[in-house]
């Protein structure tokens, strides 16, 4: 393999990884190659990625080079990325969302106490997706969360009153204590188990 071919491979990998166009100078610094060598390698790549030869094209943009997809693939790309995303809640997200739905408004520390493990990443994802939203602050200054309109739409609920009655999933329905109290007690019992305790 010639040096130019080898350099072209490396530049190909760099252009593939980079989100932004890369200038010949940046490519030279990264590959420790001279200006002319880089130019030769880019010329080779330009030929290999000439329109119609591959699914990608080498484009010169904003003083640098970047790969872009061939417009011929756009329909397929649209079909792939516009399919309703397989929107599945992870177990952690389902639990966090359920806690917010039934106990809103509720703070993150309380969600964590009920789950027995941190709910931070799940709560962040739910926030980003617009399933839950901020709703003021608790008396201790913690941000409170509630569900929003999108939540009702996605779950096909007219209002929060339509949330399923917990009774059918409730292991000990005879207990009269409030849902929140019971969830907190169960969460603390789980968290208090410690390594080897509960499971051991």
């Amino acid at each position, binding site marked *: 393999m010639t040096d130019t071919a080898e350099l072209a491979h490396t530049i190909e990998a760099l252009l593939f*990884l980079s*989100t932004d166009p890369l200038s010949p100078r940046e490519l030279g610094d990264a590959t420790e190659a001279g200006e002319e060598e880089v130019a030769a390698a880019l010329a080779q790549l330009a030929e290999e990625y000439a329109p119609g030869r591959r699914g990608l094209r080498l484009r010169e943009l904003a003083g640098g080079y970047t790969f872009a997809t061939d417009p011929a693939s756009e329909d397929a790309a649209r079909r792939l990325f516009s399919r309703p*995303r397989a929107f599945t809640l992870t177990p952690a997200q389902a639990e966090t969302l359920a806690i917010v739905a039934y106990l809103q408004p509720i703070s993150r520390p309380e969600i964590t106490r009920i789950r027995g493990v941190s709910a931070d990443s799940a709560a962040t994802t739910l926030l980003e997706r617009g399933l839950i939203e901020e709703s003021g602050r608790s008396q201790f200054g913690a941000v409170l969360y509630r569900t929003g309109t999108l939540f009702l739409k996605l779950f096909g609920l007219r209002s929060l009153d339509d949330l399923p009655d917990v009774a*059918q999933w409730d292991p*000990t329905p005879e207990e009269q204590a409030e849902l929140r109290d019971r*969830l907190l007690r*169960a969460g603390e019992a789980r968290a208090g*188990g410690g390594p080897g305790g509960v499971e051991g």
Partner: protein
Amino acid sequence: MSIASLDLDLDVFTGPFDLLLTLVLREEIDLFELQLADVVLAYLDHLESSGQLDLESATEFIVLIAALLELKSRLLLSGEDEELLDIEPDEAAEELLARMLDARRYRAAATHLRELFDAEDGVRFRSAPLPAHLRRTTAEPTDGSQDPAVLGESIGRLLHMPPAISLRHILVPRVSVAERLTHLRGLLHRGGFTFDEAVTGADRMTVAVTVFALLELYRRGEARWDQAENFGDISVHAISEPLRIAG
């Protein structure tokens, strides 16, 4: 270095660790007489002098010393409280064996994973947002596509109380350090005493608590003790007039 060849220089034994294990398992050394803390200290000394921590042998050491500790603690607990030992010796050995095998199995699996991981060194993936003109078309999930029962089930699971942890294997303390402190101070007040005198007729737990009480007296500068030879009498003396504080 393998843990097997760790050199030990203990009260009851001098030689490599694997020989010690063999002797213990052949009952040629009484586990009662073996100060496991000294074995740990010897290992720490070895680590310090070698200046490097070999995780492989450290894990081996921890598993072995844990096995010895478990054997020893069961020895110490055996006897009068038979109902506490509801695990048969061979069951206990099987359990211990299974655990040692498990730990070993997954340590080896971890080595394999690290090899896989290292083999992928230098492999990078592209992670870039979709170009703007494609991003627009990303569809929202459809209305009513989610099942509310998922939420009810989640709450039901969270309401589940975990089973209470069994504390059956933990002895209920029948004596307190405070009680034993008062007892020892009483003996000190009458002059010196030997440890055996202090625990005449006491059960195992009381003996153990009395050791704590004695250490507490030493810490407070009220008493000191001598022991002429290993396993000989321990004689305890007052350092000064004992303070008369109700424990």
